[in-house]
């Protein structure tokens, strides 16, 4: 068996194996088994579609031409990956919360679900990716041809284009089979992901095997290899600073913007947590992929005949040494790199093309009746399958037309620069709320134009697309418009030149457009949703239901999602709303959920358009407005905080003023109290002094006189003692230090006692009582209560000027309160006095009775202690006091 036949056999077996793996993974996922499918390592390996055949073969060629510079292509992704906390985390979160299906969908979603933007991104992605697919086809055919050349039995070289056609056909078939199993592009393609993870392992192993063979097999050890490198044409580290930095940045941008990278990184992402593993595992993978590139290039340059294609050293070195097995492994590595890239790129592009170009067109031409016309699901799937075939076919056509001659790496960088034009719109959309649709449109258009003019068209060579005169004289003869020396920037590397100008002008147009334009409400909403995705991973702008017919929605959803899924979704929603059956109320929440589900299948813009066909129009809910008004809200919040602060200050000032007034009042009261007290003390003291002086100084007093004076002194001393007792009593009561002696007794007994003590018997005052009502048991400090009653009765006795004086005591129970009214038939108390009678030393006029004016003050304090009250009851015929006391006295607790 010749090596070529062996190669074909191995290749076919390998492809069959891949199909089997993809099929098994899909089945396992379908049955809910296969948690290994969701491993973070599978995710990391799937990211390795960044390393295409361009990397596998081309990196060595790159290194053979310009030394260590090739490494920049890996440094950019490494930096992005270890900086996942900045961008990838946010992109993945946005992608998951908005059910993003592609990078075009992300940009269109962010800028108000604008389909125009999606179309531009799609077109640019197709222009950028088609040469790349051509590149993969070319690498497979070139490597195949390399085998054929070494095969002596092969009489004729296989037709390169037929090889490419076979490969393209097989890839299209695989992609259609496993890439469009489900319409929901947001669902994971487990089969595809598993297959590319496997291919990632194969290409890494192949490259490492070749590297080990070169270092230890061909060169004879590490030291010898290092000597060979030092002796080779790439011994000196001669890199241009601008290319080094420029290519690193370019590869970093492309890593984020490439449709296929977006597909595996964001759309196929199963779990945000996988990023944590990828953060170190993917840089390690890239490092291993590039570890042996320089040794292979150096040894290849030395060993291989001059003129040999350095892009194929990985393959031709083992072949030359007769290591056929290794060569076949190496071929499989390259084949894996090529196929996995084409598969994922075709899925990503077909999603974009069908969602943003075919479906909107179809919806447009099939009229405004999405729910009446044919099966949308079928149309969408067909559109996606056709798009896959179309994308692969385009790549093949490009390969046919370009003739497959140019160095591999050149096309790679051109494609990178093309997709890097998404960068300003993407990053601006994720981090800048002020970014608008107009800005994104302007940036993308300017950037794409500059890229096409400065890099893409010139890449076909002079006089192919752009005439030579444009290269020499510039467009329309304007010197500053020369594609390789824009604005007079001469002598720069063409790639760096084009990247510099396209990114600068792109960003400038994006920023200016955003600054000068005014966004639509939906843009503002989406902007808030994207930029502040970690604050509220909620849903974007709501629908107003009511007009929508649930049945129409169900019909439409069935056409897109499939009958079972749609009915399950509707039934679930109906159940949540507490309704039986399949038709939920078209509430804004449900409509949002439905739109999100549909956008997983047909993209945000189309889903939005389809629902608005039925529902009528999207409305902005209050919550959304709140989110949008965040900035304003912050300012308002700040000013309201200030306002609150100043109000608080004013309140505090008012309180301080009040406290000050009270203090002043207290001071006045204290002064009044002191002067009252000194007056009260002084009057008896004066009498005592005067009479005691008489007793001392007057010798000849009769015993009667002595007796009289001594009793005056005694009376005054008693009065003084009573005053001091009252003062002490009051002070104890006011300070709350009083100890209550709780007893139980009847109210009637208590009143009898009080009547006796107040000296009513034998006086003129007649007391009228209702003994029937007084049969109330009291549990309180009876002595204190009696003190209050005595005081009130004595007051009536002293001050009542009725003829004859009568005191009526009425008892009643109101709302659990014992109410006792003491009403006399005198002239009462003038309204002006009523307010002050309970104050200390307040006496109404200078009465004959020698009270100190403390009685009522003491009464008030006692009643407060007993949790009752004593108050003046106006509006009676005479003076009336009301004593209230809770019947269920809580005194018992004390």
């Amino acid at each position, binding site marked *: 068996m010749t090596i070529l036949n062996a190669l074909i056999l191995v290749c076919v077996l390998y492809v069959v194996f891949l199909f089997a793996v993809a099929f098994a993974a899909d089945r396992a996922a379908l049955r809910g088994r296969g948690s290994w499918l969701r491993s973070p390592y599978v995710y990391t390996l799937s990211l390795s579609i960044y390393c295409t055949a361009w990397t596998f073969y081309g990196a060595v060629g790159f290194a053979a031409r310009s030394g260590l510079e090739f490494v920049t292509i890996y440094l950019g992704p*490494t*930096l992005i990956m270890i900086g996942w*906390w900045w961008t990838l*985390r946010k992109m993945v979160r946005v992608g998951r919360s908005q059910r993003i299906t592609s990078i075009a969908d992300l940009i269109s979603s962010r800028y108000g679900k604008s389909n125009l933007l999606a179309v531009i991104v799609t077109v640019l992605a197709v222009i950028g990716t088609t040469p790349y697919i051509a590149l993969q086809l070319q690498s497979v055919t070139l490597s195949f041809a390399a085998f054929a050349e070494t095969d002596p039995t092969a009489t004729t070289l296989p037709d390169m284009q037929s090889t490419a056609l076979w490969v393209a056909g097989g890839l299209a078939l695989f992609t259609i089979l496993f890439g469009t199993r489900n319409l929901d592009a947001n669902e994971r393609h487990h089969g595809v992901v598993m297959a590319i993870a496997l291919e990632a392992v194969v290409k890494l192993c192949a490259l490492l095997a070749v590297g080990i063979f070169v270092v230890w097999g061909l060169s004879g050890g590490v030291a010898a290899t290092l000597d060979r*490198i030092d002796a080779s044409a790439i*011994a*000196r580290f001669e890199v241009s600073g601008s290319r080094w*930095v420029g290519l690193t940045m370019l590869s970093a941008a492309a890593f984020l913007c490439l449709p296929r990278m977006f597909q595996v990184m964001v759309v196929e992402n199963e779990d945000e947590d996988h990023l944590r593993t990828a953060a170190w595992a993917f840089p390690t993978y890239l490092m291993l992929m590039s570890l042996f590139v320089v040794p292979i290039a150096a040894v290849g340059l030395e060993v291989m005949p001059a003129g040999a294609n350095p892009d194929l050293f990985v393959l031709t070195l083992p072949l030359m040494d007769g290591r056929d097995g290794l060569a076949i492994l190496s071929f499989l590595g390259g084949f894996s790199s090529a196929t996995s890239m084409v598969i994922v790129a075709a899925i990503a592009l077909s999603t974009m093309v069908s969602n943003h170009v075919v479906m909107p067109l179809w919806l447009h031409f099939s009229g405004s009746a999405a729910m009446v016309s044919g099966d949308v699901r079928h149309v969408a799937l067909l559109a996606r399958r056709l798009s896959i075939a179309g994308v692969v076919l385009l790549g093949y056509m490009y390969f046919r037309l370009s003739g497959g001659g140019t160095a591999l790496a050149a096309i790679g960088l051109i494609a990178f620069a093309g997709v890097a034009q998404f960068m300003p719109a993407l990053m601006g959309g994720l981090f800048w709320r002020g970014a608008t649709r107009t800005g994104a449109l302007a940036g993308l258009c300017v950037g794409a134009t500059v890229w096409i003019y400065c890099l893409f068209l010139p890449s076909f060579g002079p006089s192919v697309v752009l005439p030579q005169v444009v290269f020499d004289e510039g467009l329309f003869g304007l010197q500053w418009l020369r594609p390789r020396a824009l604005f007079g920037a001469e002598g720069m590397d063409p790639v760096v030149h084009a990247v510099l100008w396209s990114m600068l002008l792109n960003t400038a147009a994006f920023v200016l457009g955003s600054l000068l334009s005014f966004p639509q409400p939906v843009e503002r909403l989406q902007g808030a949703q994207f930029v502040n995705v970690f604050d509220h991973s909620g849903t974007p702008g709501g629908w107003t239901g009511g007009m929508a017919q649930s049945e129409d929605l169900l019909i439409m959803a069935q056409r897109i999602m499939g009958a079972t899924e749609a009915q399950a979704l509707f039934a679930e929603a109906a159940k949540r709303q507490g309704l039986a059956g399949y038709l939920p109320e078209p509430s804004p929440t449900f409509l949002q959920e439905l739109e999100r589900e549909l956008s997983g299948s047909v993209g945000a813009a189309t889903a939005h358009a389809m629902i608005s066909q039925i529902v009528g129009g999207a409305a902005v809910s209050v919550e959304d407005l709140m989110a949008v008004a965040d900035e304003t809200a912050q300012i308002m919040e700040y000013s309201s905080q200030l306002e609150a602060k100043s109000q608080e200050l004013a309140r505090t000032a008012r309180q301080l003023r009040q406290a000050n007034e009270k203090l002043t009042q207290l001071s006045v009261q204290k002064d009044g109290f002191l002067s009252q007290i000194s007056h009260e003390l002084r009057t008896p003291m004066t009498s005592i002094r005067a009479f005691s002086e008489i007793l001392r100084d007057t010798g000849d007093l009769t015993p009667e006189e002595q007796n009289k004076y001594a009793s005056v002194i005694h009376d005054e001393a008693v009065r003084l003692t009573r005053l001091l007792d009252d003062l002490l009593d009051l002070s104890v009561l006011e300070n709350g230090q009083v100890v209550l002696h709780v007893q139980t007794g009847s109210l009637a007994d208590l009143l009898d006692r009080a009547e006796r003590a107040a000296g009513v018997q034998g006086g003129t005052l007649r007391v009228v009582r209702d003994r029937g009502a007084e049969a109330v048991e009291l549990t309180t400090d009876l002595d204190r209560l009696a003190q209050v009653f005595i005081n009130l009765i004595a007051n009536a006795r002293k001050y009542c000027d009725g003829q004859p004086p009568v005191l009526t005591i009425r008892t009643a129970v109101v709302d659990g309160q014992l109410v006792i009214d003491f009403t006399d038939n005198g002239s009462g108390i003038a309204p002006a006095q009523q307010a002050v009678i309970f104050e200390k030393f307040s006496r109404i006029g200078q009465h004959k009775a020698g009270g100190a004016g403390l009685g009522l003050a003491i009464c008030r304090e006692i009643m407060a202690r007993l949790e009752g009250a004593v108050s003046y009851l106006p509006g009676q015929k005479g003076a009336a006091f009301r004593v209230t006391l809770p019947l269920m006295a809580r005194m018992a607790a004390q």
Partner: protein
Amino acid sequence: MSPERSPLFLARRTYRLRRLSDAARMLPIAGAVLFSLPLLWETREVRTTDAMFYIFGLWIVLAVISGVISTRLRPTDTEDDPKGSQER
């Protein structure tokens, strides 16, 4: 005063997590600067092998640091909401 006995002003865990996310943010910047460092060398004098050792060594170091940070940092750990920034 020893750090153990000093009063706990911040929840230590959240504080560490925030500094860890700061580190995660700084790492690519440091990486970019360090990867550009060979440009400052006298490139005509530098051998490719030396540059290789530097770059691949740095690559491994960055991957290891990234691994250390990432194993302790979950995407859902700290949310960088602008309102919370004053509390940091």
